[in-house]
């Protein structure tokens, strides 16, 4: 099991261990506090969902792990990214290159723009292969065919010489996935892999990811703003707000007993597939936090109906709840009674295993 926070003991076993990572964008006009100290551990083969609304720092965190923050503004202010115990922060460009794509691979949000329009997809896959594995052209091409086959692209051999614009969005995302898994990375970061796709394709891509993670034994970090997406895929879920984790725990537990008002808000804004709950979808009121200055108290306070004086003054830290591995950073966690009223949690399906959460999927 992975365990966040007080993890000094588990450091040695974790494959990827992020410690108090802080990322800033420093421009002439402002400093943006994009990520403000996140920590988590990821075991080999584990699946972790990171959920939060647009601008909360999900993408920036993952770019920081790979050392590809947008330059020159982006920089890692503090923290460690330990991969097999080796800190990637401050690693030489040469060593980082081996990590990128080789040990940690990434899939991006928009498959329409993430592939180079002037290179064939064969070229784009083989260049990844040849950057990390000692392969000649022909072997790389053969491997690329096998990879495209694996991600479900029909007629793979012929399609190798096609250009990205000749593929549909879903197919391009499959190509991106093929590229990402090509060098058998230990960690796959999927940054909103389905956001730009339509609903039926979303489900297919998620299925594909799930299957691949199982068969390859890769660890997966699935980034999304949609709790419904993590439900069927991730064992653990971390909810992010304004560059911090506000609630972390096993996915089922988090869905059954959300403790942070923000998590509750997210859950209320996800459409459920089962017909038993006819609820109105409730978007979270208010706008995301302006990241130009850090608040003294809880960043969510301005939008929170539970906020008290303390919320505005004292920064809440992640503390364990009754649920053991379930942690929340909130002075006034949501009472259980509220959950029942909201038609959430403690219901008959609340303590099922991850598979039962399929009802949340888009």
């Amino acid at each position, binding site marked *: 099991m992975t365990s966040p926070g007080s993890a000094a003991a588990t450091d040695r076993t974790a494959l990827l261990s992020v410690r108090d990572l802080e990322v800033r964008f420093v421009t002439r006009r402002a400093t943006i506090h994009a990520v403000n100290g996140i920590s988590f551990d990821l075991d080999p083969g584990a699946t972790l969902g990171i959920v939060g609304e647009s601008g909360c720092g999900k993408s920036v965190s993952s770019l920081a792990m790979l050392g590809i923050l947008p330059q020159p503004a982006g920089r890692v202010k503090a923290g460690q990214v330990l991969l097999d115990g080796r800190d990637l922060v401050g690693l030489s460009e040469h060593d980082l290159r081996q990590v990128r794509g080789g040990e940690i691979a990434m899939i991006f949000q928009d498959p329409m723009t993430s592939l180079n*329009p002037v290179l064939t997809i064969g070229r784009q896959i083989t260049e990844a292969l040849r950057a990390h594995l000692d392969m000649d052209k022909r072997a790389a091409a053969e491997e690329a065919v096998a990879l495209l086959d694996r991600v479900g692209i029909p007629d793979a051999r012929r399609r190798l010489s096609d250009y990205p614009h000749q593929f549909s969005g879903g197919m391009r995302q499959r190509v991106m996935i093929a590229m990402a898994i090509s060098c058998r990375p230990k960690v796959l970061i999927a940054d909103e892999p389905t956001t730009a796709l339509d609903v039926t394709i979303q489900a297919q891509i998620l299925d594909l990811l799930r299957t691949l993670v199982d068969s390859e034994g890769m660890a997966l970090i699935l980034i999304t703003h949609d709790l419904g997406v993590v439900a069927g895929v991730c064992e653990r879920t971390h909810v992010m707000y304004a560059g911090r984790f506000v609630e972390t725990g096993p996915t089922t537990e988090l869905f059954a007993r959300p403790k942070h008002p923000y998590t509750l808000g997210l859950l209320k804004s996800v459409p459920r597939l089962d017909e038993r709950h006819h609820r109105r979808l409730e978007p979270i009121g208010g706008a995301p936090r302006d990241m130009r200055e850090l608040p003294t108290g809880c960043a969510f306070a301005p939008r929170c109906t539970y906020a008290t004086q303390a919320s505005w003054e004292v920064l809440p830290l992640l503390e364990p709840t009754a649920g053991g591995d379930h942690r929340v950073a909130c002075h006034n966690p949501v009472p259980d009674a509220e959950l029942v009223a909201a038609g959430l949690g403690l219901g008959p399906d609340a303590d099922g295993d991850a598979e039962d959460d399929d009802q949340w999927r888009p």
Partner: protein
Amino acid sequence: MLRYVALRLLYMVPVLLVLSFVLFAFLRALPGGPAIALLGERATERDLEVLEQRFGLDRPVHEQYFGYMRNLARGDLGVSIRTRRPVREELLDRFPATVELSIGAILVAVLVGVPLGFAAAKRYQGAIDQSSLVASLIGISFPVFFLALLLKYVFAVRLGWLPTIGRIDVRMLTAEHPTGFYLLDGIVTRDWDAFVSAAKHLVLPAIALGTIPLAIITRITRGATLDVVSEDYVRTARAKGLVSSVVNRRHILRNAMLPVVTIVGLQVGLLLTGAILTETVFSWPGMGSWILEAIRFRDYAVLQGGILFFVLVVVLVNLLVDISYAFLNPRIRYR
């Protein structure tokens, strides 16, 4: 693609027809004429008439036009009034000189402009960026004619590093010129002295003519590179663990080149115009100085043939650019 090329070539026919007519009419509407230009102010009416009759200039304009077009269809461009040589022959003499000069200028512009623009974009708002901005502003606003004179004065006359005029050392004029492109001739005939001499003669005119396109290409490359570096696929390339030189070349530059190719095509027309001035300053025996002479002498046949040929070249080069653009950009498919 073939269909597209055929169509484009076909479109050229009406363009050239209309142009030839306008050109023909315009030249004859200008005050003065070849006879008076050739014979001078003090020629008698009689002398002028004789000369005009000789060249058929006394016939009605439309008759002259149809006669000209009939000959043109047979590849006969007429005879220069001034030199009495067939225009076609002169054209074939002059054309390679201008092509050589233009290619030299484009090479200067591309080989310096692309790396400079790229470096400026990579160090956005850094020293290279700022100074390339200033330099290209100067480059664009400097009149070609003045720049040519300045270069010639400093590097040829004052410093004596490079020759002042001509395409090749006069002693080598008699060397063999199977193609008319002197650099190429030097290689073909293995006459390395001739090659070096031709190259030295080419340097200053090529720089003079290439400066404006250089400035433009630098700016375009810089802008395009700035656009491309923040593209998602560049991030993908980095996330794959590619070496940064590969990211730069294969992923950034290749995409940034697309607008540059278009610009190079558009520059060709301007280049040929600039060639007229450059050739005059450096006594470069190309089409520019040829046409300039022809204007002075109202040498109708040369002007018509030369200008039509200019247009033909510009149109063909642009077609070539469009075709190569399709090869660089797989999203473009001509039908």
